[in-house]
């Protein structure tokens, strides 16, 4: 009977209920989208390997390191392998066609990153062709690139047009693996620098170290930095996770703003549902008085109002969650270049569900109090 009353009471004013459901649905959709965006921001951190350390210039990432450091670092006991990569900062045809592009140490790079899946044939083709490049599947799809296509990149840090031939298209091992990157031979970059800007040659952006055991990582980091202490280019070595976290921290204010907006959405949601519940309960005050007259106590009345409120929030929440997936597909099409994975995390869905429950309960609190505290005779409207 209770469930019957929840549903029938909620359906009493179809337009009001529909509008409330839409409002709750939109709020939960927005909450889910923002939560997913924050998750996507952290995707790089989540995908980071525990075995990899990143060595960068001690002052800033914008400063490069001498290539000669490689052999010194390789000599450390804890280091199993080392590779390097350099941010190129080019764009394809127009500035808006931005994506991550790196000059990498081709022979070792893909061994360090097993999450970038590349066929043996494509890897061999890439290694053979010094003007070759490897691109992510999402990036290739974005620009319609196929293996064998020539891709001109306009350099920003390294001026000029740099044309590469696509020799491989990698796919991500996990959903969170970034498939929007572009890798080419560092040798090509270095050769041109030797010709035109010798002081900038033989330098790399970062070294990526693979340690033998993850638990050795903290000591290995200290050992690397100790090697170059008091040198003209001191290093800062950190885990890949910490390195990625550094990028996220740069956007901390934006992320904080997104979280505040999420909270504001929950408050708006509460106001909408509370308003609906207050109106509904006020209209039915006499019916609640009749129920009290018949002998129904505070428990039943609370369950009646609370259940309706939560049912309303749950239905709206389900609507919003169902809309979240198509909305994310649209979002992924426009933001896929910036975020490797745009899909709602279980935590985000759980938080959305929890928000619905809490809002449903809070929205019912005031009407429940009003019903329980109004004397039967007053609610029946007959005194005299």
């Amino acid at each position: 009977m209770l469930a019957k009353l929840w549903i029938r009471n909620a359906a009493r004013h179809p337009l009001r209920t529909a509008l409330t459901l839409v409002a709750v649905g939109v709020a939960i959709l927005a909450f889910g989208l923002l939560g997913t965006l924050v998750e996507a921001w952290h995707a790089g951190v989540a995908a980071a390997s525990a075995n990899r350390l990143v060595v960068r210039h001690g002052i800033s990432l914008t400063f490069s390191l001498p290539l000669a450091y490689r052999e010194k670092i390789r000599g450390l006991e804890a280091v199993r392998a080392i590779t390097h990569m350099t941010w190129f900062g080019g764009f394809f045809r127009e500035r808006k066609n931005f994506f991550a592009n790196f000059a990498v140490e081709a022979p070792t790079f893909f061994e360090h990153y097993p999450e970038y899946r590349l066929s043996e044939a494509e890897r061999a083709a890439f290694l053979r062709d010094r003007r070759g490049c490897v691109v992510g599947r999402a990036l290739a799809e974005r620009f319609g690139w196929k293996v064998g296509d020539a891709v001109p990149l306009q350099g920003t840090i390294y001026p000029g047009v740099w044309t590469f031939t696509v020799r491989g298209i990698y796919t991500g091992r996990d959903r969170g693996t970034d498939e929007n990157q572009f890798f080419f031979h560092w040798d090509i970059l270095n050769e041109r620098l030797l010709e035109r800007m010798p002081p900038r040659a033989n330098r790399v952006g970062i070294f990526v170290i693979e340690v033998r055991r993850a638990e050795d990582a903290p000591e290995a980091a200290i050992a690397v930095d100790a090697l170059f202490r008091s040198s003209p280019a001191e290093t800062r070595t950190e885990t890949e996770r910490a390195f990625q976290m550094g990028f996220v921290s740069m956007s901390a204010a934006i992320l904080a703003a997104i979280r505040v907006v999420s909270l504001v959405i929950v408050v708006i949601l509460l106001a909408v549902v509370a308003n609906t519940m207050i109106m509904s309960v006020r209209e039915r005050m006499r019916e609640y008085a009749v129920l009290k007259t018949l002998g129904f106590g505070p428990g039943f009345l609370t369950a009646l109002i609370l259940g309706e409120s939560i049912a309303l929030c749950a239905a709206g929440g389900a609507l919003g969650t169902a809309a979240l997936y198509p909305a994310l597909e649209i979002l992924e099409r426009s933001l896929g270049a910036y975020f490797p994975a745009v899909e709602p995390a279980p935590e985000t869905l759980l938080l959305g569900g929890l928000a619905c429950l809490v809002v449903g309960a809070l929205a019912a609190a005031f009407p429940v109090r009003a019903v329980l505290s109004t004397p039967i005779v007053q609610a029946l409207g007959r005194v005299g």
Partner: protein
Amino acid sequence: MSAEASPWVELEGVCKSFRRGGETLSVLEGLALRVHRGEFFALMGPSGSGKSTLLHLIAGLDRPDAGRIRVGGVEITELSETELTAWRARNVGFVFQFYHLIPVLTALENVELPLLLTGLGRRRRRAHAELALELVGLSDRRDHTPARLSGGQQQRVAIARALVTDPPLVVADEPTGDLDRAAAGEILDLLEGLAAGLGKTILLVTHDPRAARRAHTVRVLDKGALIDARETLDPECR
């Protein structure tokens, strides 16, 4: 009903006042009343005389400022709010002027509602509700919501709801006030039958002398005191 038997409803020195706009309005002042089991008792009086207030006090919907109210041997003025709620569920059936059915429930579900408090299983609840509806002659309207029933039919459903838990006391506050003459007649027939056939104690509040005429006892409440109805009733209605 025996005049010598101890009263089933007994009020002594009952006072009740309300505050309106900063003023205290005294409605009942030291009122005493006795109603016997199985008695059909009608209470009349002008608007605002305190008829409904008295009914509410006897039914345990409100509390007096002073005085004692004993119903079926229970001193209801001494019960806690929770005890009073449980007592009401077991002992009192209510019939209101405007029926007060739950609009989203069918006739059968409305009648079944008070049985939720009895601990009966769903099947037995249904059987009891169907029986009560049959008693008021509305079995064929069991699946109709109140909006699809006439005023008289809604009031019959309300009577079935009042009866379904088999309470010894039925209070009816202007039950014919919103009905035409024919429908009112049917409702009064039913109430009369409840007292005569089922031994229920009926407390009826009414403005209608024709309705009051059906009762065993008629009292008029005027200026907070009960007077004999024969002094005020139209001779035609006596």
